[in-house]
């Protein structure tokens, strides 16, 4: 029998090197067993709960793809009404598609209403569960199965939707960005988010071995590169103010991040690819400047 004491059990069907499995592990490690987790449809949901098994050692519910935040608000209201809320944390964990695209209405409503829960977006930047289709979280110039690079296209035409800013606009008392590549940073932020009263939001950057096209051993390395190139700034935002920024010690050029993944490989061979890479570098430089990384 497995000797782990972790709340996210082994035996799940995540790919070798899965970012979602790491994220789930860190979140439960941070929050502990006194929590209820709501997960929308997606990779994490599917690979962790093939009937009659479950990787979750905390109470867990999956309803549908676009309603995790609304389900979580119902759980929260029920615990309050039944006098069972106490210190129990409620955490919804959704992918980028469930959060940024199809679930944004329910998420916006739940935050506007001020339910006491934490929503964590584990963002692997495309619909991985259905085979790497583009989402609102897909970065500029990435090739996906619905934004393939071709003779007339360099891949995804649009930059990522800035979801943390949208959640901040709801008046959330705590919004944070982090990455599975920085477990301690991520665990601190998730724990803090669940400790702050009200609707709090943590956006986790999560490199997907299968969807991005890199070896499963590099999940954390890729996440680190996203941060060190300034493409993924990590910060704490409390009551609207940036109160902490992860400083980059050794800033790297974006090429190092891009060339490590198949989804950006075309940029190094197509005509005009250098210009696209330049634009991506400009995005990173803007981040570095804007957030004083």
């Amino acid at each position, binding site marked *: 029998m497995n000797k*782990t004491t972790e709340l996210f059990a*082994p*035996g799940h069907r995540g790919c070798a*090197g899965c970012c979602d499995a790491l994220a789930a592990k860190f979140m439960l490690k941070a929050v502990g067993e006194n929590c209820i987790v709501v997960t929308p449809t997606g990779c994490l949901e599917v690979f*962790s709960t093939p009937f*009659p098994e*479950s990787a*979750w050692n905390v109470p867990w519910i999956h309803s549908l793809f676009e309603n995790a935040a609304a389900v979580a608000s119902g759980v929260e209201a029920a615990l309050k009404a039944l006098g069972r809320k106490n210190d129990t944390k409620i955490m919804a964990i959704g992918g980028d598609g469930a959060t940024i695209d199809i679930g944004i209405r329910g998420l916006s409503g739940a935050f506007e209403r001020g339910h006491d829960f934490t929503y964590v977006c584990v963002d692997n930047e495309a619909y991985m569960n259905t085979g790497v289709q583009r989402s609102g979280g897909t970065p500029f110039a990435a090739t996906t199965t619905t934004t393939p690079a071709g003779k007339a296209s360099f891949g995804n035409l649009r930059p990522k939707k800035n979801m943390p800013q949208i959640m901040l606009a709801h008046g959330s008392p705590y919004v944070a960005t982090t990455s599975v590549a920085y477990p301690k940073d991520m665990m601190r932020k998730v724990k803090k988010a669940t400790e702050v009263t009200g609707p709090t939001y943590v956006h986790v950057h999560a490199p997907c071995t299968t969807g991005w096209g890199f*070896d499963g*051993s590099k999940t954390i390395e890729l996440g680190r590169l996203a941060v060190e190139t300034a493409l993924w700034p990590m910060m704490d935002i409390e009551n609207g103010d940036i109160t902490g920024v992860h400083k980059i010690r050794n800033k790297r050029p974006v090429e190092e991040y891009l060339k490590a993944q198949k989804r950006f490989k075309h940029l190094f061979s197509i005509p005009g690819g250098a210009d696209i890479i330049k634009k991506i570098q400009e995005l990173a430089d803007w981040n570095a400047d804007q957030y004083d990384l």
Partner: protein
Amino acid sequence: MSSKLCIGGIVEPGSTVINKTGSWRTFKPIYQKEKCIKCGICELSCPENCIIKTEDGYYEIDYDYCKGCGICSNECPRETIEMVLEEK
């Protein structure tokens, strides 16, 4: 599966442990205790929770579940974990 289905499909917690994912492995991590500085990065970085701390503060690998992703080896600052081709 012989047990009767529970109404609504309610499932017991942590029950994926019956599914030993070690058979997925192509490469096998070999832990070299003598190089280990007990930093715990490998344990933290394992998506399967199959690097287990032992009583002496070192680690052992639970091969029943290890999928051989190699994150532990990649992240170890002292090259304590070597990935070798699985022999079956």
